[in-house]
């Protein structure tokens, strides 16, 4: 090896950066695979209640979300300060919209999954039960019977 070395020129070999994009892409794909899509931007203030007997929702594709809570500070001018129901990105005018919304969501699901649909209720812990009961009645009438009261683990 030394044979080919030129005497004076102590030039450094160029750093091989050709593998850099590969590494970056690997990272990118890893995170893309593990990341889950953000459902919706919450327009309500929602501090979840706590409980101990929790079950994990395994398949996200089976879950539909209903949010209930007081509108965020910047929404309060237009939407008031009392508890509201949020479906996707919009506020529902009344609880009767929930049934229609859930039926639509169920129609959009593949047929074999429709019976397994779970409705997750993300409800602020200070909410009064009145509005929650209305939503539950709507879900019952829409025959979306599997529900999940989203909660945090109590320490």
């Amino acid at each position: 090896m030394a044979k080919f070395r030129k005497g004076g020129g102590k030039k450094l070999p160029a750093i091989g950066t050709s593998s850099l994009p590969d590494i970056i892409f690997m990272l990118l794909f890893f995170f893309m695979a593990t990341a889950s899509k953000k459902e919706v931007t919450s327009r309500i203030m929602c501090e979840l209640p706590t409980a101990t007997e929790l079950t994990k929702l395994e398949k996200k594709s089976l879950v539909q979300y209903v949010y209930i809570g007081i509108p965020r500070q910047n929404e309060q001018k237009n939407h008031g300060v009392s508890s509201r129901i949020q479906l996707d990105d919009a506020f529902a005018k009344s609880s009767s919209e929930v049934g229609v919304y859930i039926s639509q969501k169920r129609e959009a699901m593949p047929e074999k999954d429709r019976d397994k649909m779970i409705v997750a209720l993300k409800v602020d812990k200070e909410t009064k039960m009145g509005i929650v009961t209305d939503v539950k009645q709507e879900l019952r009438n829409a025959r979306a019977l599997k529900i999940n009261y989203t909660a945090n683990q109590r320490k």
Partner: protein
Amino acid sequence: MAKKREVQEINASSMADISFLLLIFFLVATSMSTNQGLSRKLPEPINKKQNIEDVEVNRRNVMQILINSKDMLMVNGEVMNVDRLKDKAKEFIANPYNSESLPVKKPVEIPLLGTQMITKDHVISLQNDRGTSYQAYLDVQNNLVAAYNELREELSREKFQKTYLDLDSLEQKAVQTYYPQRISEAEPKNYGQN
């Protein structure tokens, strides 16, 4: 190798920056939503047939839980703290000493377990006010589910020497038949104020 060649160290300091940038981007873009909660099943929408059946429930088979708008709890006519509810519910569901005031035990043929005396007709009736806070309601639901879970856990340890989660589906079914979950939520009523 006669002469020691100096190996150029690869300048990888920017690598960390790039990775962190990506990491942060995905952390921001990913929702850190809590996807766990209390799973419940709502009752079927009412039809007329059910109404007639509902009348014929023995008084001792019912545990009536009321939550008022001040988040106070009343169980079978007496005021109770939510912490005590779980033990009360466990006693009610299992009726370990065949008490006269607790649900009637009836012999039921259960696969794997044989004929057992169980309180198969017990009902926990839950009624809340429209002004009840969600946390109070969930506390009650949580305690009731905890009562069932603990009873099932105890039974599966006794009969199968395993935890409930380790049982296969047939064994789980047997345990579920032994302690059927019967929580009924009364039709919502409005007591005057909202």
